[in-house]
Every structure is written in C-alpha cells, then in structure tokens.
C-alpha cells in the first residue's frame, strides 16, 4: 500500500438519458449511458499508467473523474496526497493516514488544495487555451488562484521558469503571444507547462499527442518523460494509439465499453495479449516494417462498437468476438491474473487459473 499513489475501486459513471414526459409517466425505468461501468486499478508512485481503448470506451471519462472534473456515480478512488497538500486537508477526510477519496463531495477549500496535487493535460491544444488570453495570462491564472507569488515579478519568474522547462525559449517572447500565434506542438507545451506550474504529483494526460503532427509526437512524449524524471511524477496516460502506449507506458489497462478487459505491464499486454479485444487492437497497429507489407493481416474482430446506452449482456464483447462461447452471452467474466501482474477478464482464460 505504501507506494500506491492511487487506488481506484469500482469506479462508475452513468449519464442519464433525457426522456420525454410520456416516458416518465409510463413508468419505464430510466436509461443510462454507462460510460464507466466499474473499473478498478492501482497507480504506483512514479509510474506511467495507461488507459487504452477506442473512442467511447470510457477512458476519457475515467480521466476526468480522477481529475475531479465530473462527479462519479459510484466507487472509490483513494489518492495519497503529497505532504504539502496534506496540511490543507482536515483530518476527518483522510483515510489510512494520507489517502483522500477523490470521488467524494469535498469542501471547496479541499477541492482547491487537491488541484495543487492533481493536474490534467487535455487532448486539444487549441481548445484548452483561451484564445483571447496571452500565454503569460494562461500560466499566471493558476498562480493567482492559489496565491503563489505575491508580486507580479515573482509570478513572472515562475512563469519564465515554467516555459523554459517545456523548452519554450526565450520565455519573454512567448508570454506576450496568443495561442493562435504558436504551433500546435508549442501550444501543447504551454498546456503541459500549465499543468506543471502548480507542482502536482499526479498528472492525468488525456491523449496529449493525438491531435499533433506525427513528427512532433515523439518530442512531446520525450518532454513528458523528462518531466516525470525531473519531478518524480505519476501519470495516468490515456490514449487510443497502441504505438504511443508501447513507447511510453509502464502498465496498460485496456478498456472496452466502460470496463477494463486486460491489465498488465505494457510489454506483456502488447506482445502477449490475452483478451480477444486486445489481440484485435494490437493487430490493427500499422506495421512499421515494409517487408511485411505483403502479409495479409486479419483483424480478428467483427462488427462495430455498440452504443454505451445499449450494452450487450454477459461479456460486452460477445457480439463481436470470434471466440464467443455460450457463457459469454450470459455471464460477465471476472478479472483473473494469468501471469504475475497481468490480468484478463475473459472466459477463455478463466478456467486455466485460479481467480485472483
């Protein structure tokens, strides 16, 4: 428990679907979109933990839940606060000494204090910066909110340092510019600088390179790795791109329709996938080796991802899974450890080992 930064248990988020007056009156039960339907995982201190999956699988929602940008429907997320933040939190809210449940309703001051510890980097580098604010103002905002730096000069110093840290030099030039005056990659660096400026210990990165040119991705990813080493950060890295995940992730959790189907160290999950869905994802990754281009690849999955409002019964993948069995249609498979640290939720593997 001591090196666990975040322990998530049965995290759930259901979005209610708007209903007309007639439906309400007819007594039919309300429908929900089950964006996140009970996921559990741990993030070890100093690791990069990835949530991987296609659009609509719930990974972005999960990230937002951890970052306390949306309210959860259920579950627990025990987070170990850093020492400086711990002082701002009243005793009663702490469990096991240092842990706070991120999914609880917390008083405003605690919420604000947590922002010093948990930050988020968004996917869209243009959208996440207010186009009418200069880079300087964007970076100054968090400082002003948390009263960091009592004079303009002090804040200026901090901002310059933050910009240098993300390799936007000379910082004096960048503070005056507006987002539309800099490139996508540079904007994302600003977003990263903004996330770092409050010195968090956990950063949620929601597809930070998906909207960037491929040539820049490596730079940004490298920057994130450098910052992690420099600041001893933990990341929750969300992506749909297995190639990126392979490059940067320590451990991966593969999500499908709101649930984690496979979880484990990234080399194991990617090179030796157990879940049919993971297998399909891995085989869909573009092949970098030209000599293999004549090899016909079959992606072992059929159909399209169903709507999260109409989740299939039993194992969610069963309508598309080439290996579907009768039990798959009826019962949800439990999460089983097939190797040390490598878990899978699939009836194919359940008989092979003992439940974990």
């Amino acid at each position, binding site marked *: 428990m001591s090196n666990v930064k975040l322990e998530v248990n049965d995290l759930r988020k259901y979005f209610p679907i708007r209903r007309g007056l007639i439906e309400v009156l007819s007594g039919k039960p309300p429908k929900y979109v089950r964006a996140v339907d009970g996921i559990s995982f741990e993030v070890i201190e100093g690791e990069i933990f990835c949530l991987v999956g296609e659009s609509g699988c719930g990974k972005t929602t999960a990230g937002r839940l951890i970052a306390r940008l949306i309210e959860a429907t259920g579950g627990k997320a025990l987070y170990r606060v850093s020492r400086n933040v711990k002082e701002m939190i009243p005793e009663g809210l702490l469990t096991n000494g240092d842990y706070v449940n991120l999914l609880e309703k917390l008083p405003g001051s605690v919420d604000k204090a947590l922002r010093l510890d948990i930050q988020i980097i968004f996917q869209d580098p243009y959208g996440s910066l207010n186009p009418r604010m200069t880079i*300087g103002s964007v970076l100054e905002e968090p400082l002003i909110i948390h009263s960091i730096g009592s004079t303009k000069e002090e804040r200026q110093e901090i901002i310059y340092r933050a910009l240098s840290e993300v390799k936007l030099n000379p910082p004096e030039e960048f503070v005056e510019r507006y987002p539309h005056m800099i490139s996508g990659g540079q904007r994302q660096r600003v977003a990263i600088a903004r996330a770092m400026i409050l010195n968090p210990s956990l950063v949620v990165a929601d597809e930070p390179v998906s909207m960037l040119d491929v040539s820049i991705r490596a730079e940004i990813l490298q920057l994130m790795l450098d910052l992690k080493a420099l600041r001893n950060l933990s990341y929750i890295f969300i992506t749909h791109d297995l190639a990126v995940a392979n490059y940067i992730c320590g451990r991966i959790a593969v999500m499908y329709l709101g649930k984690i189907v496979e979880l484990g160290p990234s080399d194991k999950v990617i090179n030796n996938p157990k879940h049919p869905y993971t297998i399909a994802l891995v085989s869909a990754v573009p092949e970098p080796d030209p000599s293999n281009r004549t090899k016909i690849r079959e992606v072992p999955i059929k159909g399209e991802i169903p709507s999260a409002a109409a989740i299939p019964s039993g194992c969610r993948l069963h309508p598309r899974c080439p290996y579907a069995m009768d039990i798959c249609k009826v019962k949800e498979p439990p999460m089983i450890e097939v190797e040390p640290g490598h878990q899978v939720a699939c009836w194919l593997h359940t008989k092979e080992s003992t439940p974990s």
Partner: protein
Amino acid sequence: MSVLSKMYESWSWIRKEILSQVSGKVAFVLLIVLIAISVYAAILMPPDYTKYWDVGSKWVDNPYNAPPEWASYLGYTCIPQTSYDLRTVKPGISEVTGRVVFTYNITYDLSARDYPQGLRIRANIVVPQGVRNARMRVDVIKPDGVRLPAIIDVYVDLANTSLIDLNLDKPEGIVTAVMSAYRDLVRFLSVEDIYIFPMKYIFGNLSYSETLKKVETTPLPGKYVFVIDFSFRAFNIQPQDILRSIEKSKEFSLLIKGTCYGLMGTDYKGRDLAEGLFYGFPIALAIGLLVALAATAIGVVAGLVSGYYGGFIDELIQRTVDVMGSIPLLPILILVAQSIAKTYMGEDKPIVMLTAIFAVLIIFSWGGLAIIIRSMTLSIKSELYVEAAKAVGASNLRIISKHILPQLVPYIAASLVYSTPNAILTEAGLSVLGIRHGFPTWGNILAEARQNGTISQWWWILPPGFLIAIVSLTFVLLGLALEKVVEPKLRR
C-alpha cells in the same frame, strides 16, 4: 494583464471596428458632439432647472412665440429686443409746482415694418428718505409727429417706504392716449381693439378705411421718442441726491420687446427655446443611458445566471422573458404613466412619473439581452478552456468574470447602443401623446408645441423632434457599425 487593460483592449478593438466604417465614423463624430454639448450644458445648468423652466418670471421680458433672430433671412420682419438702461441716461431736470421732474428722452428707431410685441418699464430704486409721491408718466412721439400722451401714468406713494418697485408691462393709459391723440377718429376707434393690441396703436399709422368701415393700422417705421417723466415731491432734498440714487439703483430700464428672439426663438410663454433645447441634451442622454444601463445590467446578470447555473432559475428566467415578451409594452406603459399622473399629487411628481416610466421600460427590455447572453454563456461554458480553468482551481466567479464576460462585451455594447435611444423616444412619445410629466425634456417641449402651437411656429415644433431624431440616429448608426462586430457573418 490587469482587468483594466483587458477591458481597454476590448474597447479599443471595438472602437477600431466601428471607425472602420462610414456609419461608424459619422456616429462617432455625432456622439462626440453630443457628449460635448451635454457635458457643457450639464455644467452650466442652473440647480433648480425644472422649476425655473416652468415658472414664468424669468421669461417675462421675452416676446411670445417669437421666431429666431436669423429668421429675417427667411423673410420675417424681425424687430430686435431693444433695452435702454435708464440709469446711465442723463435726464433733463426741472422743477414744476414743487415737484422734481426728471425727463428722459429715449429715441427708439423702429426700422422694420412690424409692431414690437410689447414694452415694459421696470424700476427698482431706493430713493432718499423724505421723497414722496413718485410719478412715472410716459408719452410717445411718433415719427409722423403724433403724440400719445400718458400711455403710462402711475403714482407711487412713498409714505412708508423708500423703495420704488415698478414693473409696468402694459400701457394702461393707452386707450385715453389714443383717443385724445386721434380726436377725429374717435367715433371709429374700437376700445376693445386698442386694449387688446396696444402696440399696433403705439407703433402704427392709424387711418380710417372706407371699405372696412373701421380704423386700420399699418406699421410705421421711424424714430419714436419716448418721453419719460419721472417726478417726485421732495422737501429739502436735492435733485442730485435723487438722481444719484437712481443711478445707483438695481434696475431702471425701458424695454421694447422685439418680434424675434434668440438662437431658436421663443415659445408661447416667451421661454428661450435655445436654452430649453440646450439643457435638454444632458437630460436626454441621462434618460437614455440610465434606462439602457439598468436594462443591460439586469439582462447580463440574468443571462449569466441562467446560462451558467442552469436548473430551476434558468427555467424561471426563460419563462419570465417568454411571458413578458407577449405582454404589450406600450398600452401598459401608457396606463401606468397616466394612472400616476392622475393620482399622484406630490411636489416631486415629475421625478415620480419619470421613475415609473423608466421602471416599466427597464422591466420590459432586459429580456432580449438576457436570452442572448444566456446562449453565449452556455456555449462558452462548454468550451475546453473553461474546463481547463476549472482544473487549475478557478472558481465560478473567476470563470464568469475572466473567461465569459470579456466575450460578452460586444453584445453588451450593442445592447447599450440599442436601448439608449429607446428610452428617449418613448419618453418623448408619451409626452407627445399628452402624458405630461413636467420634466423639461425635448419631448416636453414638443408636446407643448403640439398642444399650444401652430405650424407657423415651426421653430418651436420642429427642432425638438429633430434633435430627438438626431440623437436616435447617432445610436442607430453606432449600432449599425457594431453589427459587424457582433455578427461576424455579416462581415463582407
């Protein structure tokens, strides 16, 4: 960047946009002129202007219904106001039967072919103790030689006072004067006519008209001599002493009222319209801006709350605006204004009425802006950078003021520009309709003109409406220029 410099940025950007178009340039110029005149007028405005405008004493010297002085270029026969300060005139001094007589000979040159509107002698003199029985007698010697004796002849008893306070604006003795001067026309003279139109008989040429079977008067230009005999019974007092007290007195003047007056003429009470119109500028602007600011402020707050917080309050505000949009404004406004006019009898009635009118206007006009602000707020609220601001710990207040409000500035400006003339026009419209609040606005002048004037008094009827229209035009042009800012799709 501080809040102020941020706001300045938005404003200067807007100003640049406005000035880039013809309508904006014109509007800007008009606006500057408008504000300049208003500020100037506001500084010069006498403290009790409302009462002062209404009360007659200030205007008594002015001719009634007089066209402006430049109307002579339009063919009007204009007689200027001519005033003689008798304190500076050296009278002839004589003694007749124990009375000291000061004789003032004033030559009045009537050059235009028209009758002056009136004449007035005013005296406010403190004479030495012991002076008794002051008498003021005025004769007129007309250019054709006819002498009208004692058109004014008053006695002032000074037994208990040394103050001679005279305000003689009617030639009381005119009837007998004319009768005695035109003995051969006595049969044909109409006493009533002389009494009602004394000026015609003082400044006119009388002749008998065979066709009309009565005495006709035609204007008689030329040099008129006013012989003013100011006499006193004074024991042991030197004439020089009395003369000195006259020279040192507050007022002693002869005024011959002209037929033209001032820059913009006068109305039926003799009020200087130029003054009324001038002081109307800041009043009009104040009315317009007051209502516009209030309605805009309420609209912005309602829209922000509605869009940002949603829920019940959102529904409530939306439904309220919806319902109010169906209620007819003008009838209710007229009803409220009239009801108060007929039932409220307090001293501050003009203020109360104006407040009521403003209240109704404000209540009915905040809705439009609220809906627009609400929809803008909703769309901005869902932007990613707002979420990002929340992620770094921004409070609702901060998000509203730093991220949402700056983007609303064009809409706020447009709302202010659109609503300002609205209030001015409505207030004027109500006045024209006949619901008088008594406050000296342009609408008030226009209403009085409509009620008490005729087309021949164009200088009374046209300028107030014209000014209202110009002010309105300024804001309409401004709004036109702002449209490009608010509706980017309309940009060419």
